[in-house]
């Protein structure tokens, strides 16, 4: 990776840290410790289920919110504040700027998720007193959450490259919600006929398939995740992010920075 991409990525990460984005970890820690103590009153099996479910859902939601709210401003804020002028007047290609921003935000989310994961395992240890072999699947669920972050980051950047922050947030959040129900949308498409079927199928394949990336429920029940799904989800998330990122680059390459 070029020095310029690494520099832009690390500067994006530094911005997030200095803007106190990682303070959300405090809220997360409070939520998880409160939940662990609260469910400590309930039976042993359910409290573990609740901690895994609540912990991983919180990791996902906190990260998605950060990805959307930072991602939508990554390009537009730099244009509004004109900080971009002194970057692009240097030997920095526009695609390098977009890719650097993407890795910076993705890196922020991975670090955030890492600390949250430690919190989840700590809470799990608190309620169950020991780890079991099946708890290893939590790592796969966390990996899928990170894949979701990559998709959301790339989409937020795509919208940020041509739209206002408010509209970008709206688009990205809508896609997240619709994408979370994409399996249901595919099921619905199979039930209907005619143009509705084509439309539902089209939308189901266009929006990111977050349903397939959500294995929190099965992991909480100690069910294993098939290797095939891990491979499929990895390829899908990388391809989807690459396409969205390419779209962002294509739009940004042609944009006049007035």
């Amino acid at each position: 990776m070029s020095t310029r991409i690494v520099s832009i990525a690390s500067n994006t990460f530094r911005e997030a840290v200095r803007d106190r984005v990682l303070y959300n970890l405090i809220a997360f820690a409070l939520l998880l410790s409160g939940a662990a103590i609260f469910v400590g009153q309930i039976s042993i099996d359910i409290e573990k289920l609740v901690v895994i479910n609540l912990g991983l859902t919180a990791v996902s939601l906190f990260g998605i919110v950060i990805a959307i709210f930072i991602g939508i401003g990554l390009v537009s804020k730099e244009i509004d504040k004109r900080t971009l002028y002194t970057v692009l007047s240097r030997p920095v290609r526009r695609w390098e700027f977009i890719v650097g921003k993407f890795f910076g935000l993705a890196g922020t989310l991975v670090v955030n998720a890492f600390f949250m994961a430690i919190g989840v395992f700590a809470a799990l240890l608190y309620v169950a007193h020991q780890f079991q072999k099946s708890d290893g699947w939590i790592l796969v669920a966390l990996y899928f959450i990170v894949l979701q972050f990559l998709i959301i980051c790339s989409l937020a950047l795509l919208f940020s490259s041509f739209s206002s922050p408010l509209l970008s947030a709206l688009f990205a959040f809508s896609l997240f919600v619709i994408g979370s129900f994409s399996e249901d949308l595919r099921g619905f498409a199979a039930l209907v006929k005619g143009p509705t079927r084509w439309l539902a199928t089209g939308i189901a394949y266009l929006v990111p398939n977050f349903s397939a990336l959500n294995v929190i429920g099965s992991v909480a029940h100690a069910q294993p995740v098939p290797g095939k799904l891990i491979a499929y989800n990895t390829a899908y998330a990388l391809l989807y992010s690459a396409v969205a990122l390419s779209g962002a680059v294509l739009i940004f390459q042609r944009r006049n920075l007035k």
Partner: protein
Amino acid sequence: MAAIEIVGLEKIYSVGFWRKRPKLALKPLNLTVEDGEVFGFLGPNGAGKTTTLKMLMGLVFPTGGSARILGMDVNDPGVKARIGFLPEQPYFYDYLTARELLEYYGRLSGVPGKDISGRAEAMLARVGLEDAGAVQLRKFSKGMLQRVGIAQAILHDPQVVFLDEPMSGLDPMGRREVRDLIGQLKQEGKTVFFSTHILSDAEALCDRVAVIHLGELRGVGAVAELTSSVHGKVELVWHGHAVPAAMKTLGAECHVTGDTTRATLPEENQDLAIDALRRDKLRLVSVTPVRATLEQYFVERLKRAETTAGGMA
């Protein structure tokens, strides 16, 4: 080789939400800036100066024409390592310290890693911010930000430096320092292209200037050349308080000062006026061409442009 070559560079924006309509920001512009020149790009606000600079930096794409810097197309990444740019009213990442910002820009400009820290320190010292290197930019005044802006523009030792309104927001001392800095850059053999609407700065610093108004180039040349085209007046000074009768018909404005009289009149009447002084046996002390200021040239050009625009309307 010319440092900057602009050929027919033009920009038309599309404005409006539903019905797009064209808005001309810059009429085809032809301009050449020689290597080592300090070149002033003058014009009132909204004249097209910043649009031109943005096209030269590859931030805005021209509708027509082309521009080359150091013989390379402006969008060639190779040329960008050899130019420096200070935008108008610069705003930087305010969560960074001045030192961090310069180090970041150094990395983006391809300054070797081992040199970055030393180069950042040297630039801070050069713009008088050596004691503020560890301060976050959000705590900087406007004048200090302008200094950081200049430091980042020259950090990587560029051959051509573009400064958009470099004196903007600076106090008289700060303006003086920027003037000195531009002078130093010239001495180092750099080409400096700067836009300004402060004419005294241009007059003091520039080898040549171009005047732009309403997106159109109105004049280009050395300051002395441009200003001499405005007035073409001379000042005659002679002993005594007597004023020959012919002076009035020659369009002279006369003032008595001490034991001498001064008359300012059109250059073409100079010989007739001297003849009149001789006829009246008055002793001529001096004949001095009166140089118009750049401001007079500027105002005259703008008035002419507005008259033309009004006439066409």
